């Protein structure tokens, strides 16, 4: 009935529903202080940063169904902005993260405006070309002289000047742990914002564009504006990911522009997780990327082949939203368990 749409669940019920998720997040955040090895803390940091790219892709492409293959461009542009601001203006990476993300988002915005006006595949094709062009520019003369060429650009990483004052033993743990917590904090904030936006009126307007753009346009929605705002917000997320990653892991090299590095993992997570659901892709992001690291110990270099084969299987089986489906089942199971607990009390 119509009442369902308008009835607001009480605060207590909301919190009770969130409890299991909050518990999982709390355990996740406690891992570094519970003695997780430095290697795995670093892995989780990278996975957290990848979550930003996954959310960025899901927020725009997952709802509007305009596949943004230009994500590596946005990620790479902010990573290089960090490096260049440091190299030529002497700005420490700590202060360069937000400006670099903004520069990259504005750049993406400016470059993609023309393609946002056109309906259909034009946008995806243009977005595919840009990272390739940039990777070429960075590694070839005369640009390579200023952009570091194959070797990339190096600089002191985030918090390094402070870490140097610490004893050698603490130094590594401090860097690993602080990177983990920063990446986790940014990821959590980004997740909450993306979730809110994706299920807001604006989010549903993006979905309406994905489902029937002409109808959306003809029934009053300013589709160009919605695409522009959605794309820019999404680009900003990817840009933050690039800037954070670059700040923590110098040197920056042309590798960031390669889709296999900065797009394919997130694209897999979005498809596997369930496009536009936010929850699904976020879980799938962590599941697939952590599994990928576990496979290193088991399979070594074979893991990339296994991973690609898995991708092919995924494409063939099209398990659209598989993780989202599992999440809903699990949530139902857990919440009935919990409500039974409360009833018993």
């Amino acid at each position, binding site marked *: *009935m*119509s009442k369902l749409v308008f009835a607001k669940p009480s605060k207590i019920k909301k919190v009770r529903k969130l409890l299991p998720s909050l518990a999982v997040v709390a355990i996740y955040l406690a891992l570094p202080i519970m003695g997780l090895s430095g290697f795995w803390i670093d892995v989780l940091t990278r996975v957290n940063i990848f979550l930003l790219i996954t959310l960025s892709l899901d927020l725009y492409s997952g709802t509007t169904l305009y596949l943004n293959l230009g994500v590596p461009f946005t990620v790479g542009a902010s990573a290089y902005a960090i490096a260049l601001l440091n190299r030529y203006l002497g700005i420490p990476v700590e202060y360069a993260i937000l400006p670099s993300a903004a520069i990259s988002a504005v750049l993406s915005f400016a470059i993609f405006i023309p393609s946002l006006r056109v309906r259909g595949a034009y946008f995806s094709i243009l977005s595919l070309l840009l990272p390739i062009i940039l990777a070429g520019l960075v590694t070839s003369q005369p640009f390579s002289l200023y952009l570091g060429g194959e070797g990339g650009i190096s600089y002191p990483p985030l918090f390094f000047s402070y870490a140097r004052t610490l004893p050698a033993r603490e130094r590594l743990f401090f860097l690993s742990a602080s990177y983990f917590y920063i990446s986790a904090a940014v990821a959590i904030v980004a997740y909450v914002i993306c979730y809110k936006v994706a299920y807001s*009126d604006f989010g549903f307007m993006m*979905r309406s564009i994905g489902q*029937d753009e002409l109808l959306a346009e*003809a029934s*009053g929605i*300013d589709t160009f504006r919605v695409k522009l705002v959605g794309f820019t917000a999404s680009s900003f997320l990817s840009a933050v990911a690039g800037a954070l990653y670059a700040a923590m892991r110098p040197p920056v090299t042309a590798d960031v522009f390669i889709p296999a590095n900065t797009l394919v993992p997130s694209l897999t997570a979005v498809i596997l997780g369930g496009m536009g659901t936010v929850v699904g892709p976020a879980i799938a992001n962590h599941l697939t990327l952590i599994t990928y690291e576990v496979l290193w110990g088991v399979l070594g270099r074979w893991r990339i082949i296994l991973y690609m084969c898995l991708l092919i299987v995924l494409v063939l089986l099209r398990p659209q939203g598989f993780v989202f489906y599992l999440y809903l089942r699990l949530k139902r199971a857990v919440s009935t368990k919990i409500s039974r607990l409360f009833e018993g009390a």
Partner: protein
Amino acid sequence: MGKLLICDNVTKRFGGLVAVNRVSVEVSRGELLGLIGPNGSGKTTLVNLISGVLAPDEGRVLFEGRDITKLKPHERVALGISRIFQGMRVYPYLPVYYNVELSARSVFKDAKLARSKTIWALTTTKLLAETLELPANLTPYKIKMVELARALVTNPKLVLLDEPFAGLSPEEVSEVIEIVRKLNGNGLTFIIVEHKLRYLMKIVGRVVVLNEGRKIFDGAPSEAVNNEEVSRVYFGVV
């Protein structure tokens, strides 16, 4: 009082085909106008020109005296021109509520106003019991109602209905007519596109007949039946 809508010699070509050929139509406030013609005569193209989905190659479209030829579809919706598409056209994976509310929200920046408008539109079209349903679970009639609710929710002054009776049973057709009549009685202007004259004869005050992109008749429905050219075009079809 000025006309609500004026199509001034509008022409639309697709390659060599002239889909709408120097058509002029004037619509007054509160009118219920029928737009008829055989398949491919340019009815939908004319609707597209009025709603802004297509831009004319020549001619102008005026709404409330203002030249809107260059305006985008969503801008025309905000001015008060709503349309429904030929066939069934809804967002397939959004519940009924959002199918309607998103249009309201894009015209009324105030969320509360948009919501109350949405409830009004869903009430008018008797959809309150289906607000959470996906279109796939609805009958063709209910889907038409969703489209109508979506068109009404933006507070239009002019509503364009492109073949709204297609695929509906005779009883359902009368129900649609009932709703349209009631809204028209409250002053809302309609242009109803139909392939056949039959349904429109009794409800519209005036018909415009198109054939091969040209306007061949403009007047009372009773005169249309007796008009020689209209009869020739419609031979065996009416």
